[in-house]
């Protein structure tokens, strides 16, 4: 794995190939969900526009920034471990986890808001999609944080080094996927009308 930080011509993506098979499956589910949303919306434009405007975009903005920042921190964490800066790497990784936690908190506040208004998965077709998509994604953020948490624990114990940090690359790839999905979900559900 020593070739990991050379600049050119990798045959494989960073991390374990197994996680990439999983990433593909996850992306497929989200892709189908997104397309289903769009086409269902096309048949119920009024309804979707009406209820979309009740969503709080400020929450969504904070959440998007949190995830992007978190993803960036993971990139820095991996860059740091590549030159054997373990403590720096750990700091970046913990920062990424903190940003993930921020996302969970803000999203939970948003859910609490909906809940207090009696809005749920079964309120109408728009909220069916809204909750299905965001909750499914929410669970992925949780899962990603568990993986990054394991990465951080291993890193703390000195389990990663410049030569061997595939585990971190695996976790990072998954985390970026979670981020990327949100980057499409945010405009689709909150903004595009």
């Amino acid at each position, binding site marked *: 794995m020593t070739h990991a930080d050379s600049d050119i011509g990798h045959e494989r993506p960073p991390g374990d190939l197994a996680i990439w098979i*999983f990433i593909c499956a996850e992306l497929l589910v989200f892709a189908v969900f997104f397309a289903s949303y769009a086409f269902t919306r096309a048949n119920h434009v009024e309804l979707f526009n009406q209820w979309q405007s009740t969503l709080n975009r400020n929450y969504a903005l904070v959440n998007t920034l949190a995830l992007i920042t978190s993803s960036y921190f993971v990139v820095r964490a991996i860059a740091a471990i590549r030159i054997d800066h373990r403590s720096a790497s750990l700091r970046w990784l913990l920062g990424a986890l903190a940003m993930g936690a921020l996302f969970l908190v803000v999203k939970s506040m948003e859910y609490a808001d909906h809940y207090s208004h009696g809005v749920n998965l079964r309120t109408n077709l728009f909220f069916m999609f809204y909750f299905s998509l965001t909750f499914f994604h929410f*669970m992925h953020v949780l899962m990603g944080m*568990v993986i990054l948490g394991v990465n951080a624990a291993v890193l703390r114990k000195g389990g990663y080094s410049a030569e061997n940090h595939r585990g971190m690359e695996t976790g990072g790839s998954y985390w970026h996927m979670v981020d990327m999905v949100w980057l499409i979900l945010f405009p689709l559900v909150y903004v595009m009308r």
Partner: protein
Amino acid sequence: MSETFTKSMARNIFYGGSLFFFLLFLALTFDTESALPDRDNRQAITEKVALGKKVWEEHDCIGCHTLLGEGAYFAPELGNVYKRFGNSTEAIVGFIKSRPENGIPGRRSMPQFNLSDEELEAVAEFLKYASEINTNNWPPNIQG
């Protein structure tokens, strides 16, 4: 070149992925449970309906019929039979009662179960209850 597709990662994905989706399934189940009171016509479940369900089960009706589309495909759907029979429990009772002991030559026929009047009424009430469950407009038409 070191292994780029490791068994331990495949294992983690199996355990992690299964747990993840099972938890998601539990979350959806939880939501379904809280949604059911508005949909499953539970206010109509009287003792009679409960007895009807037992009569239904103890004669293995599901071995020929479907109920809400599930069961055997040898005989008609009964989830909407109450409506198909003109919203009449009497018609259901009459039909079950009138089945010939020895069948109909060459044709499919429902057995004669020799049910008591109480059982007959109960099973008809049970089918009435079933017909009023919110099934998202299934079946597509009255023929079931």
